[in-house]
């Protein structure tokens, strides 16, 4: 297991991402943030926190979306994924949606996320925010709008984002043989 980014660098990146969001969405009057389960929500929790710190008077609607039932690999022989909760207490119709996931790899999760999202309504606009972009590993035509860092690793290596609240510290690691 190799460490790619440590706590301090991560924090700077999260702050920069929050500012980028404010730059494009200003007062978030028609914008909502949705984190993808299971690990995108840890990132979206942090981003939402940072945004609320920077804009304390503004309420930014925040939700979580589980994509397990929209996956395209249901019957491919792997084990079933455990569904997590979906919590969208607001309508997405007519809103600008910022989808958040931790690592963008093949793009299939985001594709599933878009299908799941569209079953809840018709957003005006959807943007994608990811912490890690594995740039050359895409299997569907999906690209992020906001990127924390780009990482180039080969196929049998896995990039995982660890969080203080869950694994004890903030870190981005690479797992797997070279």
């Amino acid at each position, binding site marked *: 297991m190799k460490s790619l980014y440590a706590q301090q660098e991560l924090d700077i990146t999260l702050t920069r991402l929050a500012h980028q969001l404010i730059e494009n969405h200003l007062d978030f009057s028609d914008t909502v943030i949705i984190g993808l389960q299971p690990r995108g929500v840890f990132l979206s929790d942090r981003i939402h926190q940072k945004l609320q710190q920077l804009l304390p008077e503004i309420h930014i609607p925040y939700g979580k979306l*589980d994509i*397990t*039932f*929209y*996956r395209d690999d*249901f*019957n*491919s*022989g792997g*084990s*079933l*994924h*455990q*569904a*997590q*909760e*979906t919590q969208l207490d607001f309508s997405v119709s007519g809103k600008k949606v910022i989808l958040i996931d931790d690592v963008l790899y093949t793009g299939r999760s985001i594709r599933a996320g878009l*299908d799941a999202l569209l*079953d*809840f*309504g018709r957003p005006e606009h959807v943007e994608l925010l990811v912490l890690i972009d594995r740039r050359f590993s895409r299997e569907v035509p999906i690209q992020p709008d906001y990127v924390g860092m780009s990482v180039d690793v080969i196929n049998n290596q896995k990039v995982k984002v660890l969080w203080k609240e869950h694994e004890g510290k903030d870190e981005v690691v690479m797992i797997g043989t070279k």
Partner: protein
Amino acid sequence: MSLSVKHLLGIKDLLPSDIELILKTAEKFKEVLQRPIKKVPTLRDTSIVNLFFENSTRTRISFELAEKRLSADTINFAASGSSVSKGETLIDTAKNILSMKVDMVVMRHSATGAPHFLANHINASIVNAGDGINEHPTQALLDAFSMTEKLGNLKGKKIAIIGDIMHSRVALSNIYCLTKLGAEVIVCGPPTLIPKHIETLGVKVSYDVRKTLEWCDVANVLRIQLERQNKPLFSSLREYSMYYGISKSLLDAVKKDIVIMHPGPINRGVELSSDVADSKQSIILDQVENGVAVRMAVLYLLAGKKDNLI
């Protein structure tokens, strides 16, 4: 994370971890059922036949809705008006339908063991929707789900099953399910309707409904199964309702907030009075709502176990 079984033939074959997995998954499907679009595309490559050789309204509609909400294709088979009346055997009926590339079978049959028999002869996954007086596993699972929703973890909780235990497949499945989840179970009814040696399944027995209600947290009340009894096992429905029926005055005398459940259909005035069936303590309609979510979970988890043999 998957079930230890290929079919859902009975709770008897399930591990406690299987039951917990099903209940956990059902929670997520219950959320799906609250959405404006109550559908997920997961089983859109699956065809499911509902092979109902016995009458049913609730269970069949519940399964059909569960299948449709998973985007599966559903085919309904009712025994009357089919080749079964021309004498076609069970295996032939099933094999013919499966030759049309149907992936799963949900079956209700009046013969105990029919789904087990079929499971030995066909490849598709089978869900038992009730076989004779043996088991009705999805009912027990939705009952456990409803109880857990109301009371939390069922370990150590006191559950009473009241009524015609002898002929009830709901009772047997409930007994297996609740004991596997660590609950304490008591069965209560007239002595003629309680099988001998049922204590060997790990349950207590009582013939006094008031004492039973004073002990339990939940009362799962069963329908008196008139259609299953060829010999007179009690003198009249009126006598049954006087001694074993649950009325509002009985509940008030017990002075406890017991959760009232019933698998349906209710014989109002016999096992439950109308004011009890419609009271705030009754979660009977929640059971029906939960039934769709639990059946979605069962179908989802079984379908995900398909062998990838071409």
